[in-house]
């Protein structure tokens, strides 16, 4: 067996690996084109070992962690290592290949040293368009996977000699905004190239064997951290559920159900009893269910747990084929990535309410609150504004919830009014706290957001993709629910109508879209209400 790595070298190399992954994210953020990448930072970077076990992550987006821990493993099932050569960059976005939804495209570069495959660099970026029925590729009415856009099975777009122009053009021919997409592709390629160069330095400096033994030790360490964290929770079997408003096609709520079994230092998350796959685009993948389970464990027990492949070893996640969390390849998934994933986390939290309420927050704006506007600017340029909306945070045992904030699996920023007005045919008429939206309680839920978007072009499109419109953020331990999400259109003629949570509509000049994001749930019985 190999000798143990000393605790100093371990930390030195861990720092170096993290720096490499961080550098990848910087490269993408600074050179990408999509507003989503540059402004909101909807991207992640990772290094994995030769088997695809994650070693280090750059930008820590909780949602992407789960996905990236599986991407390379699944990729290797499709493309054997023997087919890879130094300088390759492979691209893919299939949800079933360690993925989540089509817009999140992964670029994977095999890293060789001394002529053998040692590691992979993965750059995940949310493309602002991946083709499909509507600009922005959020097809609320999609009933199958092919309506959602271009499905990229693993394809080698770059070799050591440069881009494979024909394949690249094939991809670009199938998405909107080809120049912008090409910029994103180049940015992802550049990120993996910087990782390759840095890994070469690292191997040369410390020796291949030391680096690889350190990686093994880091995995073991994360596993030990996760085991200790699980052991810290009361053993037992717990059940919880949370509900999606609807799937955008029908109007029935859809349940995500979990059975959690905590036993010494192991945890089982069994989602088999969740509802069947939906017809609309809110299905999800087992990888996302794993990401949400990992997130829940980390916030409840051990924020310091290192996010790498080792931390999954003590967790078993079961999903049922045919269910909303394992729908098969032909059903649409675009909204499941940020809506259903949050239901998974909420179901876990609600399961644990009877035993550890003091560690939980009441329900928050666990939805992306996505509005996607499309329209032509005065200069004739087509623009797409992809805007997510935070809401009130749920209250806790010792404090009120925060106002207008992203909770749990997402942390994407907003676009300032001054940027929107300069770059899109939209005027913001007001942006305020939505007073009174937070749920009452011994501690109050946070307030949501009120923002008004005024259309300045003749033909504009709007896609909505949000939850908590019908089923509001829940109160905890007797606290009241928060006010639900609501989006209205006030037409130029003054007529007002509420929009569904998953829809594509056309708008005209002078129409105003008013979003009121949900308030957070309260915690505990409000003072004066005790019987």
């Amino acid at each position: 067996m190999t000798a143990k790595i000393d605790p100093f070298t371990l930390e030195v190399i861990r720092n170096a690996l993290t720096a490499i992954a961080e550098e990848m994210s910087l490269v993408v953020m600074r050179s990408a084109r999509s507003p989503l990448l540059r402004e909101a930072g909807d991207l992640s970077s990772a290094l994995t070992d030769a088997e695809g076990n994650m070693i280090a992550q750059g930008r820590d987006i909780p949602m992407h962690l789960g996905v990236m821990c599986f991407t390379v493993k699944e990729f290797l099932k499709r493309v054997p290592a023997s087919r890879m050569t130094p300088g390759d960059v492979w691209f893919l976005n299939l949800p079933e290949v360690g993925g989540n939804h089509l817009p999140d495209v992964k670029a994977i570069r095999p890293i060789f040293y001394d002529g053998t495959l040692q590691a992979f660099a993965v750059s995940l970026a949310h493309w602002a368009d991946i083709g499909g029925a509507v600009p922005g590729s959020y097809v609320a009415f999609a009933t199958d996977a092919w309506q959602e856009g271009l499905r990229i099975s693993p394809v080698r777009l770059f070799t050591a000699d440069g881009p494979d122009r024909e394949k690249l053009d094939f991809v670009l021919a199938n998405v909107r905004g080809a120049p912008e997409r090409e910029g994103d592709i180049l940015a992802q390629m550049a990120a993996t190239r910087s990782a390759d160069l840095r890994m070469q330095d690292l191997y040369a400096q410390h020796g291949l064997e030391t680096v690889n033994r350190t990686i093994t030790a880091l995995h073991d360490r994360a596993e030990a951290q996760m085991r200790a964290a699980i052991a810290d929770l009361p053993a037992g079997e717990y059940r919880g559920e949370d509900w999606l408003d609807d799937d955008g096609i029908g109007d029935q709520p859809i349940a995500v159900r979990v059975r959690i079994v905590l036993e010494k230092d192991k945890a089982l998350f069994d989602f088999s009893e969740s509802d069947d796959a939906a017809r609309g685009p809110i299905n999800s993948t087992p990888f996302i269910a794993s990401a949400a389970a990992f997130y829940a464990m980390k916030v409840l027990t051990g924020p310091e747990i290192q996010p790498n492949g080792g931390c999954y070893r003590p967790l078993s996640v079961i999903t049922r084929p045919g269910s909303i969390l394992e729908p098969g390849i032909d059903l649409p998934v675009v909204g499941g990535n940020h809506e259903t994933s949050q239901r998974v986390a909420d179901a876990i939290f609600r399961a644990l309410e009877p035993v550890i309420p003091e560690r939980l927050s009441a329900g928050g704006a666990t939805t992306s609150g996505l509005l996607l506007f499309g329209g032509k600017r005065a200069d004739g340029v087509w623009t797409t504004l992809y805007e997510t909306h935070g809401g009130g945070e749920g209250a806790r045992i010792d404090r009120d919830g925060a106002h207008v904030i992203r909770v749990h699996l997402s942390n994407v920023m907003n676009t300032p009014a001054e940027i929107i007005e300069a770059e899109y045919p939209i005027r913001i008429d007001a942006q305020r706290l939505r007073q009174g939206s937070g749920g009452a309680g011994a501690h109050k839920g946070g307030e949501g957001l009120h923002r008004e978007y005024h259309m300045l072009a003749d033909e504009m499109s709007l896609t909505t993709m949000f939850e908590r419109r019908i089923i509001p953020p829940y109160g905890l331990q007797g606290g009241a629910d928060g006010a639900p999400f609501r989006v209205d259109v006030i037409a130029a003629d003054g007529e007002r109508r509420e929009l569904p949570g998953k829809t594509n509509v056309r708008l005209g000049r002078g129409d105003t879209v008013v979003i009121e994001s949900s308030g957070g749930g309260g915690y505990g019985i409000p003072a004066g209400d005790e019987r």
Partner: protein
Amino acid sequence: MKSAWQVGIDVGGTFTDVVALDPATREIRTAKVQTRAADPRAGLIAALSAVNLEWENVADLIHGTTLITNAIVEGHLAKVTLIATEGFGDSLAIGRQNRRHLYRLDLAPKATPQVPAERRIEVRERLDANGQVRVALEDSALTDAIEQAQATGAEAIAVSLLHAYANSTHEARIGAALKGTSIPVALSHLVNPEAREYERTATTVLSASVMPLADRYLEQLESASPEASRLHLFHSSGGMASPAALRNLPLGLALSGPAAGVAAACKVADELGIDHAISLDMGGTTTDVCLIAGGRAEISVDRSLGDHPLRQPMVAIESIGAGGGSIARLSLGAVEVGPDSAGALPGPACYDQGGTTPTVTDANLLLGYLEAGQKLGEKIRLNRDAAQSALAPLARDAGVSVTEAAYGILRVANATMVRALNRVTVERGVDGRDCDLLAFGGAGPMHAVELARAFGISRVIVPAASSVFSAVGCVGAEMQYAQQQTVRMTSADWNRQRLSEIQTRLIERLSAPLQEADYNNDSIAVDFVASVRYSGQSYATEITTPELEDPDALGRQFQETHERLYGFATDEVWELYALRCTVSVPREGSPASTLAASAQGTPQKTESCWFGGEQAVDTLRYDRAAVATDQKIAGPAIIEDAWSTIVVPPGASAKPDQFGHLHIDVGSAE
């Protein structure tokens, strides 16, 4: 005795550093005295007398201070009332909607807005993104808003109207109407004329909230000095400014001291003809690094301090939580160092002030780099036994000797610093291995060589007077004012006239304090940096000495820079997004004067030091003042003065030049 001394005084939390230069004789005096936070006036006089000077001897006094930084970090801020555009009063509460801690549900996800709801006042008016007036500001609305603001009992007022960076007239009218009151006022188009309402508003509010403090402090200083015009302050973007200018824009002082150190490093890099250098200033709790290219410090315009976004041109210092007081701990098979620190009190275990946790300084003492029994200031005497007891448990748990543990702690501390070096270089498209490392401050020169080796740097420079280096930067400072302004002009829609107007306005605004101080226009140098991006990109690429007269040439500059930074460039439409303007009055006379050649120094003593090999090695210890110019000292050696220690490990060699800067060839550990 009347003479014309130039004096730099950097007031830090614990110590005040002084450097005095007589330009006529090139005589330099340096000193370090205890900071007297309660009475800054007495502190300055004490600092002067430490170098045997009185006010009458001083021609220019340039002063760096942590006053504003500390007030912001500790939250000692004035009560501000905000006047904002109708419909947009809650910008501060909304922020950017992202949370600070991804995995900490127990902690508040964002800071409480600096201005509570009852002091946020909305006024009816509206501009669009081009600065066109959509809703005029009526006199009645203006009067109402001012009355409401005054009724809040504000100690300062911030005005931040939507798109004011594109048209300042509405803000200026409100500012003029408030002139009659005695309340300090900050207008967003003067503080930070850049787009993004949250960041501009937050910066403006923060500026307003330190105005009363800055006002009081500057008044005290001015009353202390016989003639106010001789007093200058060192500001965050790397030059000095008049007290009057800083009264209006006190955020310029937010990085005063650290920026002065970097400015001094720039001078040294320039003097020695070093193309790329990284400054390394290691203190008790943090280490500051900054990239210096072509003798100029990189400038950042978007950073934060504590919970506050702070959008001002500032020397682009990257700060990491690893310093002499950083605590080492073993956690599940890995030894981590920092970011928590033993601070000044109790400080490292070896300070013998009650600290028991092992720190980086304790490790340096146990390795023999610091000397047992050595005195730091009046109170502290380094205690080796205390360091030994603090490290012993960690060493035992790690299964190594105490000395090995001490060396390991340094390696880990250096590894975290390597990450910072990486960030300041890679982000700028610079290969860090081509840089020299300029190390100063208390602990920088102790770590520099090992750090350089870990990062792949081959030369370390420890400048003369390295332990009072920020004060050196103050002395050498030039008058300078800088600001960044959002422009938004695409190559397809180039408007030379609008650009000229923007340039003229910036120059006028920034050189106003220089003209008030009677500098004539010929002596004022103007410098622009252009931020250019492809339409649709967010991060703009900075172009130095931009060809603003010729958009085609500017486009080529942009493409070349983009290619260098990101490995690709295209022919599509680009946009001049912002312009940063710096006006300055270049100044003669740097403190780096030739030192009198001293006799060949001989080592004071020999001691055992440990450099990670099998055993300790005999190491010569030199007094820095006694080392002669061009005397080559081969490692292992320690070169020290009263306030800092330079470690020259085996394989490295050091040689002072005629300026007194020590050049260290890091060699290899063999």
